[in-house]
């Protein structure tokens, strides 16, 4: 079983299929360089494949899934602490 999955070549996050420990080296034909996990990534959660800046779009399934609210270095967890939805907000009052 693969330890993680990258669903589209445009993706900047991968999904862990098992818990990835600190120091785990992510290698894949879809990755130009190896990515080392800087923190434990729980099963089913997302890990940054490149350094993401606050304001960047996180991409999964080849499609934006939200906007980063904080920076995240490559190999770190991407979740509710640094990523937020862009939808269901702009049209308030409409």
């Amino acid at each position, binding site marked *: 079983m693969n330890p993680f999955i990258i669903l589209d070549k445009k993706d900047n996050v991968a999904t862990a299929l098992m818990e990835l420990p600190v120091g785990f080296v992510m290698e894949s034909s879809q990755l130009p360089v190896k990515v080392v996990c800087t923190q434990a990534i729980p099963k089913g959660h997302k890990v940054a494949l490149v350094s993401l800046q606050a304001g960047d779009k996180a991409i*999964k*399934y080849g499609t934006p899934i*939200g906007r980063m609210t904080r920076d995240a270095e490559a190999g770190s967890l991407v979740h*509710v602490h640094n990523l*937020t939805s*862009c939808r*269901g907000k*702009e*049209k308030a009052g*409409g």
Partner: protein
Amino acid sequence: MQKITGYKRKDGRFGIRNHLLVLPVVVCANTVVDALARLYGDKIITVTHPYGCTFDNISNKEFEDTMAGFASNPNVGAVLLVGLGCETVDIKRIFATIKERNDLVAYVSIQDEGGTRKTIEAAKPIIDSFLDKLGSRQREPMQVSDLLIGTECGASDSYSGLSANPVLGLLVDRTVDEGGSAFLTEVTEFIGAEQNLLDRCVNQTERDKLQAYLNETERNLARVGSNELRDIAPGNIAGGLTTLEEKSLGCIKKGGSRPIVEVVGHGEIPRKKGLVVMDGPGQDVESLVALATGGAQLSFFTTGRGTPAGNPIMPVVKVSSNTTIAQRYPDDIDINTGTVIDGTETLRQAADRMYDFMLEIVNGEETKCEKNHCREFAIRRRGKDVCIL
């Protein structure tokens, strides 16, 4: 290939079950219905609910339409409606709508009969007569092209979009390719993934209808409040999902890849064969009721975290996205697609296994939900001042 059979109904649709449904049209009739449930046990299906009387015309119409559509699902062979007499929903209108599709329908009202016990006594000969008539109905050959399957995902995790939903999508594609139909619904969970669906609509009319439902849903989302996590549940987040867009992209995988031939309103019966999008809520039980109301004979319910929710009249096949859940909930999960994550099965192999299982369910094999009597019932509230997503 395995032959399938069902109960042919007056309107040409096939049921895969032959239930006698006793349905209160208003909350005040629940006690009578519960008493009948105790008297008849497994011979009848009963539902109780808190709806049926409100000053809101929009809600009233939606309740009437939903009760009538639900009770005329082809899995229902006979219906007894129970009313109070002064409720705002119109029992005669519900009765007349069902009657167009099924002759075995009747109603009793508590105020006509003169109280609880007299209404129970009045219901008994009707139920006995319906049971007698249903007992003589035989199954007839049907085809996959006679099937309309519902799709639903709930208590999702980040595997749902990697295993269970894409596997279900392949089953939907195969069913559509064989001339059958499938519903994709839960419009809340299209938000962020809508372009894929809009692109698949067969014409501008259907695309405009879908866009209108999306706009309404997103307006309602914005009205609910500013909490950015409101769109996905705590369990989704614990499972690794972060945003609505991410959840949606996984959710729509269960609709497969075929063109969207028609976009219908909440609980509306499709006119075309193929993949149909229904305007429906994200809440699982309300969604399953909407699918049954639109005529789905069975539904597939994918889950990453495990949920028992079922439906009173429509078999619900529970599909797990990961093997851990399948092992923890052996009495609730029918099909495990965690095999795809484990690497022991391909998406296609899992979809073929699901297809074979579907034919067994059509032929009368009970789902885990049916065995456990999981019969949840809830109707989407959509009124002048209400928006529930």
